[in-house]
């Protein structure tokens, strides 16, 4: 069994030895993306397992071990991890937990510490916790991000974004129910196989694959009677995770809507760009800036693929470039507003409205700090600038009641429907 090694601050490390023996568990967020991304780990000889558990006991476990006033995503992700550890499914001396850390000024950077505290409370402090981040926080001898890893991850994200986007635009209209889902599954499996073998990560390959995916989805037989178009934005976890947002996507589909959920790539671009903006606003070192610019330009090239491909199809929504989103908020919020989803959240609402998805659910964990500013705080300004915007802000929390959430969303949908009728 691997020896427990601590660094000088007393943090339990994930060692090279553990890399061989241990299974790394990580919590679910966006289903399509994470299913593909988990293969990136396996490609590096990690044994990674994505947790797909659901049910009320996840939140209950979270509430038991995490300060109850912490944001809901922390309660759920930590709840899901501890719940898995305590499930009896694993040899608890041969697992490690992985959690992301953005390094920004919001609470999310602290999830990893809350997880460690929770483990301690549960008497499980011998389980190593790995931080996944791009800020150089918390290094581990057994877990290193390489350029290859980053390229594979970027490829995985783009594949995920593309599949999610095409799915959302075909599924509501498909003639034969289930066609779209089958395609999503087919392509997900394809990418899983490729990434597992460390293939198809080059931009060239990505382009080729996205073209094929687009064509495949465009071929689905659809009846495109106009449906209410609804955008979903918000704090990243509750925005994507059905566990966090009470299966919002499913609910909206049942309400006969077409949904549009902006992708993860935009968020990554935003996080890299923040460092460049900080540099502009306050001054700072050149090397960091250079590194960010290289990474940024790589991601932008990847983004361009999505733009080029979707622009070719009339039936698909035209993917908006990151810099376009950025220009939309120019006179609304400052670019220094970077914590959490920062100005990007406001920009996404404006971009969705501009593209015909002005009926928007702005999701946030109850008491989410950045959302006070960029979500709820900006709605009235957006309404002023874009009368077509029809935004409802919904709080998610362990104690919040689904009926109340759905009732508010239905109100937004009623107004949207009325506007749709007037337009037709």
């Amino acid at each position, binding site marked *: 069994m691997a020896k427990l090694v601590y660094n000088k601050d007393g943090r339990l490390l994930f060692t090279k030895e553990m890399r061989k023996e241990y299974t790394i568990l990580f919590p679910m967020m966006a289903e399509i993306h994470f299913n593909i991304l988990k293969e990136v780990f396996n490609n590096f000889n990690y044994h990674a397992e994505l947790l797909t558990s659901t049910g*009320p006991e996840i939140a*209950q476990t979270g*509430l*038991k071990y995490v*300060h*109850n006033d*912490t*944001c809901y995503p922390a309660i759920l992700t930590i709840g899901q991890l501890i719940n898995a550890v305590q499930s009896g499914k694993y040899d608890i001396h041969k697992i490690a937990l992985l959690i992301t850390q953005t390094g920004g*000024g*919001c*609470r999310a*950077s*602290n999830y*990893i*510490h*809350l997880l460690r*505290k929770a483990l301690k*409370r549960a008497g499980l402090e011998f389980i190593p916790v790995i931080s996944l981040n791009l800020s150089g926080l918390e290094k581990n001898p057994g877990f290193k991000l390489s350029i290859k890893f980053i390229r594979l991850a970027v490829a995985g994200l783009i594949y995920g974004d593309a599949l999610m986007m095409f799915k959302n635009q075909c599924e509501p209209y498909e003639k034969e129910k289930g066609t779209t889902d089958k395609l999503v599954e087919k392509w997900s499996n394809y990418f899983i196989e490729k990434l597992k073998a460390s293939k198809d990560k080059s931009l060239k390959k990505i382009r080729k694959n996205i073209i094929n995916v687009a064509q495949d989805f465009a071929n689905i037989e659809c009846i495109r009677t106009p449906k209410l178009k609804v955008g979903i934005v918000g704090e990243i976890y509750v925005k994507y995770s059905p566990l966090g947002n009470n299966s919002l996507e499913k609910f909206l589909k049942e309400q006969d809507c077409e949904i549009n959920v902006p992708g993860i790539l935009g968020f990554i671009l935003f996080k890299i760009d923040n460092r460049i903006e900080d540099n502009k*606003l*306050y*001054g*700072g070192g050149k090397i960091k800036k250079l590194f960010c610019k290289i990474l940024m330009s790589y991601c932008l090239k990847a983004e361009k693929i999505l733009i080029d491909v979707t622009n070719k199809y009339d039936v698909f929504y035209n993917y908006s470039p990151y810099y376009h989103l950025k220009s939309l908020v120019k006179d*609304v919020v*400052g*670019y*220094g*507003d*970077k*914590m*959490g989803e920062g100005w990007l959240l406001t920009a996404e609402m404006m971009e969705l409205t501009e593209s015909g998805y002005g009926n928007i659910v702005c999701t946030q964990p*109850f*008491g989410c*700090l950045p*959302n*006070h*500013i960029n979500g*709820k*705080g*900006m*709605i*009235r*300004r957006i*309404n002023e600038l874009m*009368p077509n915007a029809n935004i409802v*802000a919904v*709080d998610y*929390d*362990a*104690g*919040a*009641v689904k*009926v*109340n959430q*759905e*009732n508010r969303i*239905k*109100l937004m949908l*009623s*107004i949207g429907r*009325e506007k749709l009728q007037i337009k037709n």
Partner: protein
Amino acid sequence: MKKIGLDIGSTTIKCVVLNEEEKIIYSSYERHFSLIAKKIEELLSFLKTNILKENENVKIALSGSAGMGIAEASSFPFIQEVYATRIATLRLEEKTDVIIELGGEDAKILFLNNGVEVRMNGTCAGGTGAFIDQMASLLGVDISKINDLAKEKEKIYTIASRCGVFAKSDIQPLLNQGARKQDIAASILYAVVNQTIAGLAQGREIKGNVLYLGGPLTFLEELRKAFDDVLNTKGKCPENSLYYVALGAAYAADKVMDLSTLLINVKNYSSTSNFAYQKPLFETKEDYEKFLLRHEKHKVETLSLQEYSGPCYLGIDAGSTTIKLVLIDENKNIRYSKYMSNSGNPVPLIKKELETIYNLKPDIKIVSSAATGYGEEIIKSAFQIDFGIVETIAHFVAAKKFMPNVDFVIDIGGQDIKCFKIHNQAIDNIFLNEACSSGCGSFLQTFASSLGYNIEDFANLGLFSKKPVDLGSRCTVFMNSAVKQAQKDGASIEDISAGLSRAVVKNALYKVIRASSVDDLGKNIVVQGGTFLNNAVLRAFEMELKIDVVRPNISGLMGAYGAALYALTMQEGKSNLITLEGLKSFKHEIKVANCKLCQNNCHLTINKFSNGKQYIGGNRCERPITKKEQNGDLNLYSYKQNLFDKMIKSVHHGKRGKIGIPLGLNMYELLPFWKTLFEELDFEVVVSPFSNRKLYLEGQATIPSDTVCFPAKLIHGHIINLINQGVKIIFYPCMSYNIDEKKSDNHYNCPVVAYYPEVINANVKNLKRENVIFIKDYVGLHRKNNFTKKFTLVLKKYFSNISENKVKKATKKAYKALDDYKEKISLKGDEIIAKARSEKKQIFVLAGRPYHLDPETNHGIDKMISTFDVAIVSEDVIAKKVKKKIKVHTLNQWTYHSRLYLAASYVCNQEDMNLIHLVSFGCGVDAITSDEIRDILEKKKKIYTQIKIDEITNLGAVKIRIRSLLSALKERKSN
């Protein structure tokens, strides 16, 4: 064709039937007690036989949040209720500009002109009508009486408007202080008004023709008047104001439906039983009996009073919702006891009990008496009780009687949860709930009575439930909604009863104590308080912790019993207690007044008794009683406030004209910097004043997020204040980063402090209307070397003739001014510490953020604590004493919060220092820091005390906390 509209709200069901001309031919309004399907069925059958012709087809639509599930399952057309309101209004009251509609659980505002906007309250503010209901039961009157009472108001008290739980925390102590019910009733209605406006206006002004709809606004004329008053308008409550939603549904109904089919659908509708549930409390009857047997052992005998002629000892616990009174003999047996609801005024109730005792046993020898609880002071003054004892100590004394080696006591009363650890026979650590989890016990009671049960029967219903509902544990407002949802999902009364018992326990364990296992508490646990009289709650507690505990048979009387025991130990041979004669001529007069001795402007209630004694409630400091100004020598908060006061008042006339700075959030530290900088650049800096209630109210309509912290909400008022002063340029910059004090991993501001200027910019319309230049650019004080250059660029955007050189000079002075300010307070801090030490006084580090200096934010807590003859310093000066970074188990990335860790670690090594952590409600960052600060302190055996503050102005609970802390410290010392 006739049209039917149904509106199924959270508590009532409304129905209208329209004839072919769309005139109302039938309408009804009744409570549904959550039996929704049954009520709809009854209603439709009634309509079918009495209103409609045989086999007549109709158009029907259903609306209302509680109707959503059944509409879907039984194929009724569904119209969202706010939308329905709008349809009806456009038809009936087309000139309306704004609709305000209050229901049982929801509040809504609709703006109809210049861009339709509709708003519903968020999660936190749930329960409008339900809130008034609850408050009425707190006052012991029915809801229509609230209106009558409010008519006779003389003054309005400030009642927190964030949510029902918070409001209750303000009202309860008012009742206990003896405030007039008339004034409280009116204040409740004003709280509803403020809650609605603060939560829903979100930057849009409510003006023009206002329409009032829904139950509370229809039934309570005084509520409408309160809205009129606050909005400065004259709203209209139209005919059929109860039925607008139902009418809207009827107007919108366009699908022809066969009523018979619908009836069959409704009949067949059985909800899904699709709710989250937990393990049953008892699997078998046998388990239950074993459980009962085990708990029967822990008891005190109650014996006859008449047959006893020895000395007696009286204990009174005047709690927040109940009064407990115990008379014991010299062997500590109970000779008389009473447990009663305090119905808003404890004085007459206790008077009656004393009379009863004297009448039962005219020759009684009461040798000693003691009082405890919220109402301790008023009771002491009224009846000449000999001793006062802090609640926690009273409970501890009583617990020891049942379990001499007790090491943990938890008391769940009506309003409060109190827990404490015992180490070496002394109270070692105290946990008291903050506002959010208050009222759990009385919620159980109110809920039971709303269903027509008494609390005991209701709790017992849950004992054998197979599927106790999971109701969450955040607060009673959330629980209330969760219950309603569960009912809709088919949970039985039994399941809900069991679920509530578990929710109360979980709230206590995971929110108040923050324990995840029994190891965090102790091995020998005594549970008490009225709520634990319920076997269901007791069982839930034992299940959650997996340990057997002791529950005394007088669980609900423990505070009073402890007081009686205390009276017994402290006896001096003769009691001053009021005599029967004294009771006969007993008089109690209440007057209300506003203390004008300082900027806190406390609302005082002055109680005068016939014995010449008086008791003043509502005060924060001793000034209104002693008439002497408080000695601010040992209070660093006072000193800092004085420094800021000087800064606000010092005027430097500059050629460039006025520039305004709002005094809030980080400006409470950075003001010396910015004021100096702009004055050096030849501006006249206008600083907004310290916050007060009026200033807050002026800005509340522009707050977009009702769950943000109170200090942030106050900024809105400051901006309005500056605009009203005629300032045309306001400077309030965004700051991601704070100054790096080199003792943390990073040096961020929290997102709210960092970016609140963005919220102001986007939501305070007056800025644009008054052509104010609002400078909210991003600045980085943390990079001193880059600052001049970057800031010059910012200034050049707005002003001409600003040279980098000038800015450089000004910046240098500004940094120096900031350093000077910090140095000044550090020196003063040291002086206070030295003085306190020479006078052997306790030193409290009141550890918050710089903005907790604001009197409206801290509610005068510093002054209140000062009355206990202790010294007060702030976290910043203490943090400075730690010279290097300390290791913490969080990502230590916020400058303000890193000071808290440092201050805590410093306090650990100072015998005469203790830390009180001030937390603003909604401070997400403190959810992370508070556990860590507690760990730092507890590792060194220090007591962690947290005070959560918001709009709530009443300091009753805080006082008890401080007193408990002080007495725990005293006991520790004597050990």
